[in-house]
């Protein structure tokens, strides 16, 4: 006679437990409606408040009856913690939703082929487009990339490969630099380059300020990636007679390639929507300006800012459309960075 042991999962929820959980939720939803109808409280806030309060109360009481005071506390905390997570996610859902809803009416065929040189923000939406803003943002990002990526990666290399006596202070300074307010970066370029040297707005000025904001992001992410490269690779390089320079250039950096790409993309996402220094330094022209070194240049944040401050319904729709394009840009960059960083070490 064989006895077959059936594995049990005493911690798993039985169907009865599930029914009970759903019943609790239903009861609290119903009670929230009843309470809101019966008392002078009104509005979404009241519904949400009563809903969570009654859910916490019901589950807390149930746990107290079945398992005592510690379990009651535990279940109340569980509700609280879930509320925290919900409150974290609600704003982003609202942002995504409203930007999509308000931005889509502003999207039209000419948006990506025309600029605003023949239009004002208060014109009908069909007139004019975003071309100058998109090309301007592109110019700013590319120029900022050329300056910030080498510096950022060199900083990361110093922290991981050389590990000199300044490593601690520099790590600290890089972190301090990531907290520099964007407007201060703008003022710095204004005082150090724009007023004494060039005396005019240009994409280069904006890009210099963006470089300051981008370096810490690139440096910190690259450092994390370089730390993940196994030391065996470095030792193998040295054992084969490679100098440190050749080991880093031929082995470490290629191995960290996709991780470094992630760092760069996160840096771009950080600066693409940066507004304050752009307002101070680029002048915000309405025409496509291919010259990065002179002349005012438009950009997505500047366009949004200008349209938003113009205030008419058309202008506000323009601002939303600009926000939609900017948000999509940031989302695409972010998702690309995520996809790349899921394989941090290349083959």
């Amino acid at each position, binding site marked *: 006679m064989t006895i077959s042991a059936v594995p049990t999962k005493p911690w798993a929820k039985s169907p009865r437990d599930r029914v009970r959980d759903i019943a609790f939720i239903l009861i609290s939803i119903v009670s929230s409606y009843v309470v809101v109808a019966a008392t002078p409280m009104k509005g979404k*806030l009241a519904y949400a408040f009563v809903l969570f309060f009654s859910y916490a109360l019901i589950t807390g009481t149930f746990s107290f009856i079945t398992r005592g005071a*510690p379990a009651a*506390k*535990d279940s109340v905390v*569980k509700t*609280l*913690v879930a509320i*925290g*997570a919900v409150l*974290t996610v609600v*704003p*982003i859902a*609202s*942002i995504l939703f*409203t*930007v999509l809803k308000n931005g889509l009416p502003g999207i039209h065929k000419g948006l990506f082929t025309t600029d605003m040189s023949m239009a004002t923000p208060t014109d009908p939406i069909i007139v004019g487009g975003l071309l100058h803003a998109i090309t301007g943002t592109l110019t700013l990002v590319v120029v900022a990339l050329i300056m910030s990526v*080498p510096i950022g*990666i*060199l*900083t990361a*290399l*110093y922290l991981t490969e*050389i590990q000199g006596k*300044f490593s601690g202070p*520099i790590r600290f*300074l*890089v972190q*301090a*630099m990531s*907290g*520099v*307010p*964007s*407007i*201060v970066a703008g*003022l*710095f370029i*204004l*005082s*150090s380059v724009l007023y004494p040297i060039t005396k005019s707005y240009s994409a280069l000025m904006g890009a210099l300020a963006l470089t300051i904001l981008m*370096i810490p992001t690139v*440096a910190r992410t690259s450092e994390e990636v370089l730390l993940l490269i196994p030391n065996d690779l470095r030792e193998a390089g040295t054992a084969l007679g490679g*100098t*440190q*320079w050749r080991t880093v250039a031929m082995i470490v950096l290629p191995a960290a390639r996709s991780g470094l790409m992630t760092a760069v993309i*996160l840096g771009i*996402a950080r600066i693409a*929507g*940066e507004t*304050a220094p752009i*307002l*101070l330094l680029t002048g915000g022209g309405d025409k496509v300006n291919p010259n990065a070194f002179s002349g005012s240049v438009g950009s997505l*944040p500047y366009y949004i800012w200008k349209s938003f401050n113009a205030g008419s319904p058309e202008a*506000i729709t323009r601002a939303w459309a600009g*926000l939609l394009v*900017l948000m999509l840009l*940031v*989302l695409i960059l*972010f998702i690309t960075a*995520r996809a790349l960083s899921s394989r941090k070490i290349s083959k």
Partner: protein
Amino acid sequence: MSTTTLIPSPRDITTEPRRSDKVFRGVVTGGGLSSLVILGLIAIFLAYRGYGVMRTEGFSFITSPKWEITVDESANVVSSDFGLSAMLVGTILCSIVAVVIALPISVFSALFLNFYAPEWLKRILVTIIDMMAAFPSILFGIWGFLVLMPSVEYWAKIINKYLGWIPFFEVKPYFVTRSPFIAGVVLAIMIIPIITSVSREIFAQAPLDRIQAAFALGATRWAMIKAVVIPHGRSGVIGGAMLGLGRAMGETVAVYTVLNIIFQVNWHILFGAGGNVASLIILRFGEASAYEINALMAAGLVLFLLTLIVNALANLIVKSTGKSGR
């Protein structure tokens, strides 16, 4: 005899790096020192530009609430009175409101992510929260102004109705639109991702053996968190909150769009008047004369030093918890 010529002379064994390595190390060290150079240059240039204004204004640059300048037709300064106290109070008020709102929400959601959420939900939520941290501030500003403001005004009215007897929540005269409270809520939403991800990382470092020991002794999840996770992560969470504070203090565009900027020291968070140093710079920059620009540079220097101190403290706190691991 001829064989000896085939044997190469032995190489010198040396720890001296090759020239290529010397160059490499020099270049990398130079790059590494760039952050020091940039931070130093920022302080030097802003101080250089703002020095004149700070000397004429003296101590009242910090204590006076006024920001006035009179110029004659040929743009000569007739009289000027620059003071930052209203803006500094506004900066501190808005960012403290933001941290007070954001801290509990962030800690709760970090606890949820680490100890309550199933793995799939955790992965999705972490991605969403990280993504939110990458959103540009102008997005938060315009969304806050057009979408969030009506609701927050309604909340502000409720708070004023029931808690108006606390001097902090007093509103006199009754004007609750575009108040520091609303700016604080928008800033809170902007810094929640930062505080959440710092707290999440700190909580994840809570020693596993102690967590398991707590469970083995029959602790509920909350009892375990109270006994193990919170003592371990407390100072790290404080550091995260200060990082958020630093970000909130330097925020420009979002505050400018939402807040009613008035040069008046206002400690009543629900009253529709306030400002912060960064928004002052944006507000005045467009029409500023050369002399006023210098005053704005000095204001920028004050803001820079303020955020630098807050950030440095925050990083020190976070770093020291990461290492100790009780």
